[in-house]
C-alpha cells in the first residue's frame, strides 16, 4: 500500500493558476470590460443624462453620428494627427534610443531628464504647455521677438505674437508637437530595451565583418528590433487615438473644429452635452479601427520574430 500524503489545495496547479490570474482578470472585467459593455449598451439606446432609461433604438445613433459632418471631420483629424505624430515619434525615438545606448558621460542624467515628459501627469504637463503656447505671454514668442523674428520687421510675422493655439495651422502643429513630445520617451525606452537585447556577439561580428555605423544600424540593428518597434508603435498609436486630455486642456478642440479629436468629441457630446447614447456611439467608431490595427501589428510582430 502506498503512503498517501495529505493534498493541499495550493499544491494543485489549477487552483494556484486561477488564483494568480484572478487579480488581472478582475481588473480587466471591472475597468475595461464593464465600461465597454456599458458603452455598447448606451450606443444602441436613447439614454441621456436627463433620462437614464435604456430603450433599444438599433443603429439610429450610429447613423446620426455618421451623417454628421463634424463627426467626419473629427474622425479624419484623429487619424491624421495619429499618423503624422507616429512618424515623428518613431524617428525621434530611434535616434534617441541609439544615442542613449552609446557610452557617454552624463548618460544617466540625460536619460532621467529625457524620461520626464512621460513621467509627468498629462494634465500637469499640458498646463505647462498652455503657458508656453499662450497667445499673449508665450515665452517662445518672447524669445522670437527679442531675436527679431517677430514684431515690426520680423520674418515670421509683423505681429508680436504667433497665436500658437489660436491660428488653425499652428494649433494643429502645436497639438501634434506636444503629442510627439509626450509620447517619444515611452517609445524610446521600448526601443532602448530592444537595442540592448541584441547580442553583443552579433554587433562584434558586424564590426569584424567590416560593417560601419550606418550599415550596422540599417541592416542589423533596425531589422532586429523591428518586432519591438511595432509594439512601441502600437502602444503610442492606441494611446494617442483615444486621448482627449491634450486637446481638452490646450484648445478644447478649437479654433473652430481644427483640433477636435474623437475622444474629446465623444466627451463633449456625451458628458458635456448630456447625450450619453450618441457620445457612446462616437467612441465606439474607434473600436473596429483600433482592433484591426492591434491585430495587424501583433501579427506583424510575431511573424518578424518567428523567422
Amino acid at each position: 500500500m502506498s503512503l498517501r500524503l495529505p493534498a493541499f489545495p495550493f499544491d494543485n496547479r489549477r487552483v494556484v493558476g486561477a488564483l494568480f490570474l484572478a487579480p488581472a482578470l478582475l481588473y480587466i472585467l471591472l475597468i475595461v470590460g464593464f465600461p465597454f459593455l456599458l458603452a455598447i449598451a448606451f450606443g444602441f439606446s436613447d439614454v441621456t443624462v436627463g433620462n437614464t432609461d435604456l430603450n433599444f433604438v438599433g443603429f439610429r445613433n450610429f447613423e446620426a453620428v455618421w451623417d454628421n459632418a463634424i463627426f467626419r471631420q473629427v474622425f479624419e483629424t484623429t487619424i491624421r494627427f495619429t499618423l503624422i505624430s507616429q512618424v515623428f515619434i518613431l524617428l525621434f525615438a530611434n535616434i534617441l534610443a541609439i544615442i542613449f545606448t552609446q557610452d557617454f558621460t552624463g548618460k544617466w542624467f540625460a536619460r532621467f531628464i529625457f524620461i520626464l515628459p512621460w513621467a509627468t501627469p498629462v494634465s500637469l504637463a499640458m498646463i505647462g504647455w498652455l503657458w508656453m503656447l499662450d497667445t499673449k505671454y508665450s515665452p517662445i514668442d518672447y524669445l522670437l521677438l527679442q531675436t527679431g523674428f517677430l514684431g515690426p520687421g520680423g520674418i515670421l510675422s509683423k505681429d508680436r505674437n504667433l497665436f500658437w493655439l489660436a491660428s488653425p495651422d499652428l494649433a494643429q502643429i502645436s497639438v501634434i508637437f506636444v503629442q510627439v513630445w509626450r509620447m517619444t520617451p515611452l517609445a524610446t525606452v521600448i526601443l532602448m530595451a530592444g537595442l540592448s537585447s541584441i547580442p553583443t556577439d552579433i554587433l562584434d561580428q558586424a564590426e569584424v565583418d567590416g560593417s560601419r555605423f550606418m550599415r550596422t544600424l540599417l541592416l542589423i540593428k533596425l531589422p532586429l528590433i523591428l518586432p519591438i518597434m511595432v509594439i512601441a508603435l502600437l502602444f503610442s498609436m492606441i494611446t494617442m487615438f483615444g486621448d482627449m486630455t491634450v486637446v481638452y486642456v490646450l484648445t478644447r478642440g478649437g479654433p473652430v473644429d481644427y483640433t477636435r479629436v474623437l475622444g474629446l468629441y465623444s466627451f463633449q457630446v456625451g458628458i458635456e452635452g448630456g447625450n450619453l447614447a450618441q457620445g457612446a456611439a462616437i467612441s465606439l467608431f474607434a473600436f473596429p479601427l483600433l482592433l484591426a490595427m492591434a491585430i495587424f501589428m501583433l501579427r506583424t510582430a510575431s511573424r518578424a520574430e518567428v523567422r
Partner: protein
Amino acid sequence: MSLVQISGLKKHFDTVRAVDGVDLDISEGEFLVILGPSGCGKTTLMRMIAGLEKPTEGAIAIGGADVTALPPRKRGVSMVFQSYALYPHMNVFNNIAFPLRAQRREKKLDKRMIRQKVESTARLLEIDMLLDRRPRQLSGGQRQRVAIARAMVTQPAVLLLDEPLSNLDAKLRANARDELKDFQRSSNITAVFVTHDQIEAMGLGDRIVVMSEGKIQQIGSPQHIYDDPANEFVATFLGSPSMNILSVDGCRFGFRPEHFLPKTLSDKPENSRLFHYYVKRVEYLGSDRLVYGYVQDHEDELTLAKVPSNVRASLDVESDYEFAVRDSDIKYFDKQTGLRIPAPKRSEVTYS
C-alpha cells in the same frame, strides 16, 4: 617572418589584469591554439588581435604593419564566435555575403563577383544547398559551417576562432574538429583557435599556447607541452586525469597516472622509482582501470594510476602493492615558483 607579431600586450579592466604582458609570434599557415582555463585572458587576447578590444599597452602587427590602432575592418582578420553570431534575419547567402558587401568598395567587388565568391565558399564548406535557409532552420553543425564560410569568404590573413566547437554535441564535435583541421590544412589559412578544452587543443594545434592569469605559461607543440611541461600549472592543466604531484621536503615532483604502474609491469625496475601504494578504489573504464590510492608517507595526497585493462595485474581494493615510475617520467618543480627544475641527483632523493 611571422605573420602576426604581438609584443608586450596588456589589457587591464580597472584592477583586473586580463592580459598581462603577452609576447607571441604566429607564423603563416599555422594552426595556433590558445589554451587555458576560463578567465585566463585567452578570449581578451583574441579580441585584441581582432581589434574589438583596445590594448592598455603593447603592440600588434599583422603582415609587418602595426595594426594596434586600426579598427577590425582594416586588419584583414575575421572571426568565428562561440555563438556563431549569425544574423538571424538574413538567409545563409546574405549572411555569407555580408562582409563582402560591407567591404565592397575597399575590395572593388560588384554584385556578380560577390555572388560567385559566396557560392564557391559555400560549395567548399558543403552548404551550397542551404543558401536560402535562415539560421533558425539550420542544425548546430550547419550553423558552424555558415559561420566559417562567412569568415573565410573575404580571404582574411588570419582566421580567429573563439571556442567554435563548444556549442556542438559530443559526437558532432569530434567530427567537426577533424573537418576543421582538414579545411585549415587545405586552405592553408593562418588560424588562431581559443579553447579551454585540452583535447581540442591537442588534436588541432600545430602549436599550443598555454595561458593562465593573463600570462603565457608555455608555447610548444602538443607533444612538447605534454611531455615537457615548463611548470607545474602546465603539467597539471594538461592530461586527464591530471598529473600526480607529491611534495618532498626540498621540492615537488610529479608523474602522470599512465606512467604509474605495478612494479611487475615495469621493464626496467632499476631505472625506476618505487613506491608502496595502497589501493583504495578501482574504476573500470573499459580500456583502462583508474586506480585511486595513496603512496606511503603521502597519505594526504590522493594519487591516481591509470592501468591498461589488457595487462594482467590483479588490483584488489584495500590492498598494498609495489608501483613504479620510470625516472625519465618524473618531473620536478620548484616549491616556490612552480617552475621545472632538473632532477636532483639520486643520492639526494629520499625514497618513499
